[in-house]
């Protein structure tokens, strides 16, 4: 557990650039650096747990494609590294929105997950859904094609945001175990370092599918894990908040008393593995908070029993969204919770969600938020 004399660095990806927000352990006064890569979409920025000065950023543009940027000084300076994401072999087809076959085409990197132990190893989740790995600091990328080729690939289909691999969780207790999630294919797990994969969607039910309990096709929005308890996973599905106690082999619903169980973001308190946060969104047709009230919901019981956290958040006329990669926690003694909105605010709580304040208010729409706790 980090002391409050430490500092915090918040990495924010937006539709028009990246921003780095820094503060001391009090988390009251914030310095804002940016925009970095101004005018480009920054889907994700994340730091290496093995070297906090090593950051990776996904920079993309409909005009000029994909760039990967790397920093070795905590975001002060950046260098472009490799941007070639070539699918292994003949890519084949997945399903288009109307169920017809559609060729696999690389569009962008949604998520970058640095290795827990090696600052030169980083995983990339991409659209159209696939998993890549670099072991040379992002200079070259190789597909872990056992995922896309495991057999169900032709049945995957895009969610509204595209067919994206958006979640990568590395098991701190087992270096061979990786969890990923794809919209709209579902969750998958590898137990051999990414060579082979299996779908882990038993217990999910999605009424939008011809077979609501099919092995693949579920629109999983996000999965979260507490590092001390990697067999317990929490999932925000398109609809439904779910929990697994057996590393994804089975899931059960823990939506409980949530006012709506649609949403995107989900995360776990840094020191309390059964304290979980979600931001309920009205519906898949109306991507904004219910009743114009921006409310984070917290469960201290691992799901089912939820309380609304509203202190400091707008409680009228608020129609922003909180996207799937836009919530994160710090590891200070009093756990900090952070989330960004499509309205350009980043809210922070320094007391586990009891109260909130905007630490920056007028950014472009926020796509991702990550937090580094610095000693």
């Amino acid at each position, binding site marked *: 557990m980090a002391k409050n004399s430490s500092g915090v660095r918040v990495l924010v990806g937006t539709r028009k650039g990246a921003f780095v927000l820094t503060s001391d352990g009090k988390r009251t006064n914030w310095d804002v650096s940016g925009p970095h890569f101004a*005018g*480009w979409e920054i889907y994700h920025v994340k730091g290496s747990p093995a070297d906090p000065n090593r950051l990776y950023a996904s920079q993309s*543009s*409909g*005009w*000029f*494609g*994909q*760039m990967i940027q790397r920093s070795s000084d905590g975001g002060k300076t950046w260098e*472009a590294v490799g*941007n*070639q994401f*070539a699918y292994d072999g003949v890519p084949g087809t997945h399903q288009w929105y109307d169920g017809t076959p559609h060729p696999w085409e690389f569009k962008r990197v949604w998520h970058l997950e640095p290795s827990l132990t090696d600052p030169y190893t980083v995983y990339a989740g991409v659209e159209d859904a696939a998993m890549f790995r670099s072991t040379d600091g992002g200079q070259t990328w190789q597909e872990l094609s056992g995922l896309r080729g495991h057999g169900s690939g032709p049945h995957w289909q895009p969610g509204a945001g595209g067919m994206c691999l958006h979640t990568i969780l590395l098991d701190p207790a087992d270096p061979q175990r990786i969890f990923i999630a794809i919209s709209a294919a579902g969750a998958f797990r590898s137990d051999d370092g990414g060579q082979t994969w299996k779908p882990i969607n038993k217990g999910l039910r999605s009424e939008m599918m011809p077979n609501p309990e099919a092995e693949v096709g579920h629109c999983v929005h996000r999965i979260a894990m507490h590092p001390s308890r990697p067999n317990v996973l929490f999932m925000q599905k398109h609809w439904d908040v779910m929990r697994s106690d057996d590393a994804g082999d089975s899931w059960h619903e823990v939506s409980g008393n949530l006012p709506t169980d649609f949403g995107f973001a989900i995360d776990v308190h840094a020191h309390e593995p059964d304290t979980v946060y979600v931001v309920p969104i009205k519906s898949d047709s109306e991507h904004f908070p219910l009743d114009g009230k921006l409310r984070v919901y917290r469960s201290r019981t691992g799901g089912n029993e939820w309380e609304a956290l509203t202190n400091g958040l707008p409680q009228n006329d608020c129609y922003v969204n909180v996207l799937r990669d836009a919530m994160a926690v710090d590891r200070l003694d009093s756990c900090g919770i952070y989330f960004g909105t499509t309205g350009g605010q980043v809210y922070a709580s320094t007391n586990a969600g009891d109260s909130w304040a905007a630490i920056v208010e007028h950014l472009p729409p926020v796509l991702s938020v990550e937090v580094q706790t610095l000693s």
Partner: protein
Amino acid sequence: MIRVQLPQHLRTIAGVEGEVSLDVEGEITTRSVLDALEARYPALRGTIRDHATQHRRPFVRFFACQEDFSHESPDAPLPEAIAQGTEPFLVVGAIAGG
């Protein structure tokens, strides 16, 4: 010297201001100019042409001497004014939005 004008975002990626001047060997074509450009500024690889197919990205256009070369063969000779350096070769981001 071949003169190349890049859109702002690609100038930032390349770390240049204003026009780029390139030595290009052999026949002056879209392909030879872009090959020389990417050799000088490797970070531009993949931003103008697809890595694998070498096809122009859909929202990128190539103009020279007030003509559109976007749909010409990449191996077609560019105008003499480009080869002589009296006119720049333009890499343009297609206009989109309102």
